[in-house]
C-alpha cells in the first residue's frame, strides 16, 4: 500500500521557483531520505508534506488520502525539527503530552503514553525538567519523544541530528533505525549528510535546485548514479572524475591515462557499444576510490582488472585504509590502499584499477553516458 505519494509538486515563493515538479511514491513503512546540498528545497518539501507550507501546484497523499489542502493537525503526522523546537515554558512531560492534551486524550491515558515514550527513549529521569536544563542530546531525545507520543501514519524528520556532535550523531542514527524497525511506520527524513542518507534510507531521493536528480535504493544510487552530481554527492571520499581521451589501442577500446611515471591505457570491456562513438574524444571517467587499490594478487585474474605503476602524491592514513593521492591526466585522484601496502610521497606504487563498476559522463552536461 502507498505510504506517501507526491505528485508533480511545485513551489514558488513569489518569483523564486523552489520546487520544480517533484514526484515521489513510497510504500507504507518505507524509510525515505530526502538528501541534497543546503538550499535545494528539502525542508520546503518536508514542510509541504506536513502542511506547514502551502503547495503551488500538485498533490500530496498520505496513505492514499489526499491531504494537499488539509491542516497539519488533520494529516496524522508527527515531526522532529532541526532546532528541536521544544516549548521552553513546559517541562519534558508537558512537552510530550501537549499534543495529546490538545487532542483531548484523557489524562490517565496521557500519563501512560508519557511513560511508554520515556521508557522507549530512556528519558524517564528527565520528565520534570525544563528544556533549558537538558543537554543537546537529551533535547534531541525529548523532541523524538514528542513525535512518538502519538501514533501517526507518517513521521517527518528535518535534519534531526545535525546539531549533535559526531559521536552522538552516530549513536542516534542507529537508534532511529532501530525505532523504524520496531514501529514499522513510514518515515521521511531530511538530511544534507550523505552518510546518514546511505545508512538510514531504504529509498533515497537526491535533490538539487528543486529537482530530484535520482530516486532509488542506496545501492542503486551508489552503483548506478544517473549523473555526475549524484555520483559526486554520494560516497566519501568522493568518486574520482578523470577526463580521459577514448582511443583504439591494439584494436581494443581504451582510455588513455597519464601519470608522472608515463602514459598507460586501460581497456574498457563490456561497454564498447556505447563508447565506440567516443573514440578520439574526451570523456569523464567516474571511478570510486575503493576501485583503485594496491596490488591484490588474488584479484589479478578477475575481469576488468588492470595494473599500473603510479607516483604517490599526498598520503592520508584513515586507520582501516590509507588514502593515496595520485595525478591522472592532471586530475587529483584518490586511491584506497591497505595501510601496510601504502608508499610514501614521491615513491612509486603498483596500483590495481577495477573498471567493472566504472561509469562514464558527458564532459559538458555531466549526464551519464554508460
Amino acid at each position, binding site marked *: 500500500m502507498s505510504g506517501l505519494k507526491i505528485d508533480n509538486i511545485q513551489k514558488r515563493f513569489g518569483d523564486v521557483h523552489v520546487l520544480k515538479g517533484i514526484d515521489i511514491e513510497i510504500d507504507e513503512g518505507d524509510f525515505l531520505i530526502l538528501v541534497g546540498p543546503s538550499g535545494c528545497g528539502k525542508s520546503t518539501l518536508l*514542510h509541504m508534506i506536513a502542511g506547514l507550507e502551502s503547495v503551488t501546484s500538485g498533490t500530496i497523499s498520505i496513505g492514499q488520502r489526499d491531504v494537499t489542502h488539509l491542516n497539519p493537525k488533520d494529516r496524522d503526522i508527527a515531526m522532529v525539527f*532541526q532546532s528541536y523546537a521544544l516549548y521552553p515554558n513546559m517541562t519534558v512531560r508537558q512537552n510530550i503530552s501537549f*499534543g495529546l492534551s490538545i487532542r483531548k486524550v484523557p489524562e490517565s491515558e496521557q500519563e501512560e503514553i508519557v511513560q511508554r515514550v520515556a521508557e522507549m527513549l530512556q528519558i524517564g529521569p528527565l520528565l520534570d525538567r525544563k528544556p533549558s536544563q537538558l543537554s543537546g542530546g537529551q533535547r534531541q531525545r525529548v523532541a523524538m519523544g514528542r513525535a512518538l507520543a502519538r501514533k501517526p501514519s507518517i513521521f517527518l524528520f528535518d535534519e534531526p541530528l545535525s546539531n549533535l556532535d559526531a559521536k552522538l550523531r552516530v549513536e542516534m542514527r542507529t537508534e532511529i533505525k532501530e525505532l523504524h524497525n520496531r514501529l514499522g511506520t513510514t518515515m521521511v527524513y531530511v538530511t544534507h549528510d550523505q552518510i546518514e542518507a546511505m545508512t538510514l534510507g531504504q529509498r533515497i531521493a537526491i535533490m538539487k535546485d528543486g529537482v530530484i536528480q535520482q530516486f532509488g535504493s542506496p545501492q542503486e544510487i551508489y552503483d548506478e548514479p544517473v549523473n555526475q552530481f549524484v555520483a559526486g554527492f554520494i560516497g566519501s571520499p568522493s568518486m574520482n572524475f578523470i577526463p580521459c581521451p577514448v582511443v583504439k589501442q591494439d584494436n581494443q577500446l581504451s582510455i588513455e591515462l597519464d601519470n608522472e611515471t608515463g602514459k598507460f591505457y586501460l581497456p574498457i570491456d563490456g561497454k564498447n557499444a556505447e563508447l565506440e562513438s567516443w573514440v578520439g574524444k574526451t570523456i569523464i571517467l567516474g571511478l570510486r576510490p575503493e576501485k583503485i587499490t594496491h596490488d591484490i594478487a588474488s584479484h589479478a585474474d578477475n575481469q576488468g582488472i588492470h595494473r599500473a605503476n603510479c607516483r604517490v602524491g599526498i598520503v592520508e592514513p584513515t586507520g582501516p585504509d590509507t588514502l593515496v593521492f595520485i595525478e591522472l591526466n592532471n586530475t587529483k585522484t584518490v586511491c584506497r590502499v591497505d595501510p601496510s601496502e601504502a608508499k610514501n610521497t614521491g615513491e612509486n606504487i603498483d596500483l590495481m584499477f577495477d573498471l567493472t563498476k566504472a561509469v562514464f559522463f558527458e564532459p559538458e552536461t555531466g549526464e551519464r553516458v554508460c
Partner: protein
Amino acid sequence: MVEQNQQQSLLGRAFVYSALVLGAVYFLIPLFVMLITSVKTLDDIRTGSLISWPDQITFEAWSAAWTSACIGVDCGGLKGYFWNSISMVVPAVAISTLIGAFNGYVLTKWRFRGSDIFFAMLLIGCFIPFQVVLLPMARTLGFLGLAGTIPGLILVHVIYGLAFTTLFFRNFYVSVPDELVKAARIDGAGFFTIFFRILLPISGPIIVVSVIWQFTQIWNDFLFGVVYSAGDKQPITVALNNLVNTSTGVKQYNVDMAAAIIAALPTLLVYFVAGKYFVRGLTAGSVKG
C-alpha cells in the same frame, strides 16, 4: 612597567568614579531639596535656605497634599486624583501590552501580504507628536460618548501606546524560532492556543519592558489628561498642576513638594522593583531551548 600601568589604571578609575559621583549629585540634589522642603514647616522654609536641614521634621505637608490641599475650589487633596490615575493606568497598560503582544505575534508568526508595510506604518506611530492627534481624537471621543471620562483616557492611551508595545513584542518574537510555532501547529494547537500557551508564557522579559514603559508614559502624561478629562475625573498630573497653581493665601511650598513627590512615587516604585528586569528584557536575545 607593571607598577606604572597600575598607577594609570588607578588614576583612570578615580576619574571615572568622580565623574559618576558628580553626575549622581547633579541629579539627586533636586530630589533632595524636594524631600527636605516637604518635611519643613512654612516658617522653616521662609527663614532657612533651600538646602538647609529642617529644624523639625513634620509630615503635615504630606497629609495636607494627600487629603486637604485645595485644587481649584475643591479642597480634598490629591487622593481622589491618585485613584483616578491608578484606574486609568492599570487598564491602559494591561490592554496596550496585551494587544501589543498579540500584534507582535501576528506580525512575526502569521505574516500576511503587506505585514511589513503595516509594521512600518505602526513604527511611524511612535514618532507622531501628541499635538497632532489632539483634535481628531477629541472628536472621536465625543462621537463615542467618552469625552471627559476615564474610559476615554484609557482608550487614548491604549491607541497611542500600541505603536510602542507592538514594536517591543515584534522585536522580541522575531528572535523566537518559527519552528516552535510549527511544532505547536503539528501538535494541533490553533492560533490562540499557540499565543496563550506557547508565546505569552515565554514573554516575561518583554512584558516587563512594555509594562514599565507604558506605566511611566501614561502615569506621567499631562497633555492628554488636561485635554480629554474634566473636573474630578482628571489624572494626578493635571491635579498636581492645578494644586500648585491654586493661589489662595500664601504659597505652601512644602505641600507642593510633597504633592509632587506623591505624584512621582508610583513610577519610582516601578523602576525600583522592576528596573533590573527592564534592562534584562531590553537585551534579552532569543529564547534558548
